[in-house]
């Protein structure tokens, strides 16, 4: 028995498999041509896709726009870098970054979840600014220059080891981790907990009367999203060998929001496609003009105004039809809103 949410999620999985296939082709092609530039670019795109995924968990499922999700990405990156510089162990760095972001996101969640809507957006923005400025001014963390000289580590898998300096190997590892985070997020949304999140977005004020604590649900998704951002950020210094305060700045958070909007809010896989698309756009447009922001800004605005489900919203109904093999029941916004408007205007 499939309901609408499950069908949409399956369609997202189809898109995820397509992405995975494309990524594996890139890896094979990169290995054959001995490329490192495109593989490392692809790796970076996937890392930022993890950050976008965490923004979509909040925006797409609980309806909360975070303008400071880079905070947890940056904390993950810095903790990972500090760990790697002390003990060159990839898994230890990931664990430390995960733990640190869990703590940070719990604190951040206690602060941010006191408010809703636009105030939530502004408070997350403000928190990220405060921490970013503190990091920017802390000499022990390299201040404005960040930290360089993070060693290239061997990533252990039992008896085997892959060097983080191996473009194909590390690309595949990052691919596995990011797709794993996607899978975990998708799984969570298919649980009773995840359904409460979708209820939050649909009608938050009704949720307490069903017996669920709004605060607890918001807190849980906030901490989980922080963890996703932190683990993604932890991969960054392994790839680039440095971290800088820019990782926490608004531009980083803003790019993640752009990725989610381009790819499709509330689709999870859209966030990943969006992040990849953003990197591709930047490098393609960037090859003939440095003013890629005009194009990206325009695309972004068009998506906000006319394509509320982004690119995935474009393609997914088609896949959904293939899955259920019945005419689509995708209900357009115009079909929903009169009913909502009617019931609201009764007040």
């Amino acid at each position, binding site marked *: 028995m499939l309901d609408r949410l499950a069908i949409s999620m399956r369609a997202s999985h189809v898109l995820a498999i397509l992405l995975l296939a494309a990524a594996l082709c890139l890896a094979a092609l990169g290995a054959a041509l001995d490329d490192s530039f495109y593989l490392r670019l692809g790796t970076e795109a996937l890392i930022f896709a993890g950050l976008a995924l965490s923004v979509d968990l909040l925006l797409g499922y609980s309806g909360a726009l975070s303008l400071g999700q880079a905070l947890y990405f940056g904390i993950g990156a810095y903790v990972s870098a500090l760990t790697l510089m002390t003990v060159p162990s990839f898994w230890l760095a990931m664990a430390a970054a995960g733990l640190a972001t869990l703590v940070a996101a719990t604190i951040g969640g206690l602060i941010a979840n006191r408010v809703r809507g636009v105030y939530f957006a502004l408070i997350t923005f403000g928190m990220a600014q405060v921490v970013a400025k503190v990091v920017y001014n802390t000499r022990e963390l390299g201040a404005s220059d960040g930290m360089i000289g993070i060693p290239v580590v061997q990533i252990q898998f039992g008896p085997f080891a892959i060097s983080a300096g191996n473009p194909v190997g590390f690309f595949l590892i990052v691919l596995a981790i990011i797709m794993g985070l996607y899978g975990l997020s998708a799984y969570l949304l298919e649980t009773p907990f995840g359904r409460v999140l979708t209820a939050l977005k*649909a009608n938050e*004020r009704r949720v307490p009367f*069903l*017996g669920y604590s709004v605060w607890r649900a918001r807190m849980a998704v906030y901490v989980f999203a922080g963890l996703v951002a932190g683990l993604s950020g932890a991969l960054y210094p392994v790839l680039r060998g440095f971290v800088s305060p820019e990782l926490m700045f608004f531009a980083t958070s803003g790019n993640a929001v752009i990725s989610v909007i381009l790819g499709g809010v509330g689709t999870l896989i859209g966030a990943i496609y969006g992040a990849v698309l953003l990197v591709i756009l930047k490098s393609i447009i960037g090859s003939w003009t440095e003013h890629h922001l005009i194009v990206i800004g325009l695309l972004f605005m068009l998506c906000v105004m006319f394509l509320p489900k982004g690119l995935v919203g474009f393609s997914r109904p088609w896949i959904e039809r293939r899955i259920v093999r019945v005419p689509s029941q995708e209900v357009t916004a115009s079909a929903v809103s009169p009913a909502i408007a009617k019931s609201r205007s009764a007040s």
Partner: protein
Amino acid sequence: MIPPVLDVRGLGISFGGLKAVDDVSFSVERHRITTIIGPNGAGKSTLFNLISGALTPRNGKVMIDGVEMTRGSAEQKKAAGLSRSFQITNLFFELTVAENLRLAAQLLEPPTHAFLPIRRSRRAMEKTERMLERFRLAHRRDELAGNLSHGDQRRLEIAVCLASEPKLLLLDEPTQGMSHADTQDTAALVRGLTEDVTVLLIEHDIGLVMNLSDHVVVMHQGRKLAEGPPKVVRSDPVVQAAYFGHH
């Protein structure tokens, strides 16, 4: 002695000096239908908000099943077995009919199921199916709640309230805006509920109230004017002057 399902003692709240609900006391007996009536502005919906945790009372007590829950939040009162509907349809309009029901029904599952796949929540899934059948919504199960007709939405709302198997059901004007046929239909439905739950209603349709209720509480200007069996209340001269006089 078994305490009443709901016991309200001296409940009150005021907004900016206006006593919206003032010193209201009554109790609701198990498996019966109690109805609150009163002209517009009598404080009926505010009373519901105080009982259900949407508002915190200034004075008085709310006891659910003999346990004091006066200052309990909405979700605490829900956990104590109280479920409510709203005067203005309040559903998850962007979710399907089945999903609306399942959200309520998944509360039946132990908390350990919260992070397991939804398929594992068998009780919730079965409950959803039963509610779809019972409320004749099965053919619309995958429709978005926002696309239902007004009558179907009102029925769905009752079904959602019932899906979590509450002890006490608070229905705020369930027939509001319904056609005559739909109203009769809903009345029969509500009558059938008392096997499982106790019902506290707010209703405007006096004919319906007299047919349906076991007990009637009359409110006027925030205060309880009278209470008793429908026939007794109807013939009460004070009630007639204050309430029926308007019709």
